[in-house]
């Protein structure tokens, strides 16, 4: 059998141009940062096994997995609600992969590796919420969508998982967005268009925020 070497590449590697975009001569109102090389496993309870999965997840992560639209931080991962009886495990550095999670969770749940099936984009800046309001019908006001809130929703007719992470060091709210890899470029351009009037700062990072 032939040997293959698989090189993982970002679905945004062509569309993402680091630097500034849109309005000039102003401090960028929106920062877009693509996070690259993450581990993302979707965990879905088997029929009738939701309670068993909750127990197994608690034992594995030390905190309860979200059973409502929330994102929960563990010591080395983020658990993000993605629908009834299902959640994502987002982490870095091969701590939570199919190999390491399967022994703990595969009895009550189906696991599927989504690491290369999604793009992860961090959105922040003083105009981030106003920009997102053009694309999303979710109320992202901090009183309604505080840190740890999550939503499975659509932006520009594209399914996304959106959640509010911890604030950036400068106190700005940070919104995280998971989008299907094949839709990432389209949504990226839509976000750039929506953000252009505020000035955009574009970057990519290997670090989970």
């Amino acid at each position, binding site marked *: 059998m032939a040997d293959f070497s698989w090189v993982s590449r970002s679905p945004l590697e062509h569309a993402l141009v680091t630097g500034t975009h849109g309005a000039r001569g102003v401090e960028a109102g929106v920062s877009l940062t693509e996070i690259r090389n993450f581990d993302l496993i979707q965990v879905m309870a088997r029929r*009738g096994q*939701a309670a068993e999965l909750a127990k197994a997840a608690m034992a594995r992560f030390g905190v309860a997995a979200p059973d409502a639209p929330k994102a929960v931080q563990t010591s080395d991962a983020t658990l993000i609600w993605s629908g009834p009886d299902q959640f994502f495990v987002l982490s870095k550095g091969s701590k939570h992969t199919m190999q390491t999670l399967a022994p703990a969770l595969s009895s009550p749940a189906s696991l599927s590796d989504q690491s290369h099936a999604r793009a992860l984009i961090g959105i922040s800046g003083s105009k981030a919420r106003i920009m997102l309001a053009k694309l999303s019908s979710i109320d992202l006001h901090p009183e309604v969508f505080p840190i740890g809130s999550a939503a499975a*929703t659509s932006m520009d007719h594209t399914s996304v998982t959106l959640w509010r992470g911890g604030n950036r060091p400068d106190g700005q709210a940070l919104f995280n967005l998971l989008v299907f890899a094949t839709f990432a470029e389209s949504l990226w351009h839509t976000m750039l268009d929506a953000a252009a009037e505020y000035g955009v700062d574009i970057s990519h990072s290997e670090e989970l925020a």
Partner: protein
Amino acid sequence: MRIVCPFCGERELGEFTYLGDAKPVRPVAGASEDEVFDYVYLRDNVAGATSEYWYHGGGCRAWLKVARNTLTHEISSVEPALGAGAARVGA
């Protein structure tokens, strides 16, 4: 029109897809041709209270059963369809 998904909360119509009437029940094996014909083809055109299946494909991907009045568009209840969200409905 907005639908309050029991899992996600209130969402715009664009996130949902309509499947159809939730009333017809699949006939048992060996049912008469008339019963099967009725199940497959015949639908009431209700002016008033209906029960419909909707799919939250642009959100949590759960199937929902929506009680809706076709005269007023008032939605009186939204519940998970059988099997959706086992923890919530105890299926």
